[in-house]
């Protein structure tokens, strides 16, 4: 096995656009679930709206790249309203059911032949990079060190994404230390009690759904920035990866989702390199290299179960602040 290339490939995941995108979405889910107790199982839908909103604005409507991002964000706000208005007054589990279905509807709308001229259906969208790349402040060439050597476009995507992530984390930090965050956490604990104290619970839940959804959409944008919009990405398993990341890092924390995303992708990167290598050097009998590469998803599933059972508050979560096991 070529350990040097395995480790170098793994290390590059530290600041990959995928890692940043997942961290943004997980941060959004922290606002939803970790702080607000909203069971959103439709994060993939928010991300798809961000990605498609960005790509379609540029390709179909000829908008500048930054306006594309705004359109993606706007689409997620509309989506949050559509989800929230009928369900936020109901019990928490209804939101879970509605969001998981709504995200699938969104994906199917983008995949269907009906809107082929705009969405390119199952083939997805690409070649919308000109505007973003033209705005690149980095000089031409390839630089960096070790595994983190990228060309100018690669750096621009990463720096832009990390910038968005820092702003998002700062916003979450500011919101959650404030009385607004206190109300939201109160709603997570018992919304009737908060209602009895004169707070408009529905409005707070709606605001939380929108804020978290915006981060999800931005995650979708960052995911789309370097490459293409592929509809098969925005499936329900994407939502569950985001949940894994959130629970791994700590649901009611600011840095947990970011740490979770890094760990998730570094491990995924490592496994996707090491498992096929092990298979081809005969360490994993009964398995082809392709099968070995898929094994990582099984391991992720097992990891999710182990986290929820043994460390429900996540890596950074307060031991007492269990979000799964209520005292």
């Amino acid at each position: 096995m070529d350990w040097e290339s395995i480790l170098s490939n793994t290390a590059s995941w530290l600041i990959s656009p995928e890692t940043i995108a997942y961290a943004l979405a997980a941060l959004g889910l922290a606002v939803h679930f970790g702080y607000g107790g909203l069971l959103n199982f439709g994060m993939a839908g928010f991300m798809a709206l961000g990605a498609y909103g960005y790509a379609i604005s540029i390709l179909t409507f000829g908008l500048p790249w930054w306006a594309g991002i705004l359109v993606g964000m706007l689409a997620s706000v509309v989506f949050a309203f559509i989800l929230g208005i009928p369900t936020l007054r109901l019990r928490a589990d209804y939101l879970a059911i509605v969001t998981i279905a709504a995200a699938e509807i969104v994906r199917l709308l983008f995949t269907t032949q009906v809107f082929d001229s705009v969405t390119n259906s199952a083939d997805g969208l690409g070649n919308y990079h000109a505007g973003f790349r033209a705005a690149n402040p980095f000089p031409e060439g390839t630089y960096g060190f070790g595994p983190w050597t990228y060309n100018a476009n690669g750096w621009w995507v990463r720096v832009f994404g990390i910038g968005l992530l820092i702003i998002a984390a700062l916003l979450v930090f500011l919101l959650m230390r404030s009385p607004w965050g206190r109300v939201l956490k109160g709603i997570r604990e018992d919304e009737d009690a908060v209602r009895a104290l004169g707070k408009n619970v529905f409005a707070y839940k709606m605001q939380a759904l929108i804020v978290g959804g915006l981060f999800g959409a931005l995650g979708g944008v960052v995911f789309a920035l370097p490459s293409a919009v592929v509809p098969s990405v925005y499936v329900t398993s994407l939502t569950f990866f985001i949940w894994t990341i959130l629970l791994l890092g700590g649901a009611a924390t600011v840095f947990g989702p970011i740490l979770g995303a890094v760990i998730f992708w570094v491990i995924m990167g490592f496994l996707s390199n090491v498992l096929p290598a092990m298979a081809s050097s005969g360490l994993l009998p009964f398995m082809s290299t392709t099968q070995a590469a898929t094994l990582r998803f099984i391991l992720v599933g097992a990891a999710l179960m182990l986290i929820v059972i043994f460390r429900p508050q996540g890596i950074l979560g307060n031991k007492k602040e269990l979000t799964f096991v209520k005292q």
Partner: protein
Amino acid sequence: MSSNSSAQSPVKSTGLHIGDAAPGVAKVDPIIIADNVTRTFGGLKAVDVDHLEVPRGAITALIGPNGAGKTTLFNLLTGFDKPDTGTWTFDGKRLNGVPAFRVARMGQVRTFQLTKALGLLTVLENMKLGAQKQTGENMFSSLIKPLWTKQESEIEERAMEILARFKLDTKKDDFAASLSGGQRKLLEMARALMSSPKLVMLDEPMAGVNPALTQSLLDHILNLKQEGMSVLFVEHDMHMVRHIADWVIVMAEGRVVAEGDPHTVMEDPAVIDAYLGSHQDVDLGVVTGRISGEKTAEAEELLAEIDAEVGLTDSAAYSADPEKNEDTK
């Protein structure tokens, strides 16, 4: 003031009603006026109140056997449940159809029979949540700390003041989940007071609170009256009702069956009937206090008292008596 107000008998407000004390009697200065309020669950009429007035500036007890509809009436009056029919006003303003959070903002706050402490918030955070009109609770101004720090420290000061009164100040940084059941009751009541309400509605504030704490809770409730608030509370412990209530409203099977000052009401045959006559299966502890085992002596005393005063010779009280004796053996 609070420490000795219960040592001697608290000062009762009198002259609250106009005319004879009967179900639905008019009050001199009502804070709540309800008309024709009904609520059915399937075939069951949980609440069916023709007319009800709750006096201002007084402590009113709402009593009645289990399942009488007391909690349901609370839920209706505070906007947590929607009635089938009915209108009611609070402080002269119509309240039906008004959502629960608006009701609270208008100065009518409640606590719950099943305590709702916000477990993963600290005691102090629980308290601060009770304060009204917080700038920092707006999403946009919450981002800019200087906009709300001053108000926040005022709120904190007030919260600590109230916590000290409830002897919870040393627990301020503990998660509410770590409090005992009785302490949570105290916290919930203290939190409700953060909003400086006009009417405090307490659903069984004493349930699960030990006798020593009961004493201080009673003092707190009496203090509320002294501070000019009105109190409406649900309670099963008749001694406590007698001790602090200025007015008693009795519900049974959804209806108001009697009203009056505590001493008169407890002699009312309709009340005895509500508790014993039509509910002989109900444990006598309901009448005489929650902890029937401990209060047997008191229970018998009260029963004897009721019997003597009403002159019931062969009443339901007697027929239920052997039952109780067996229970406590």
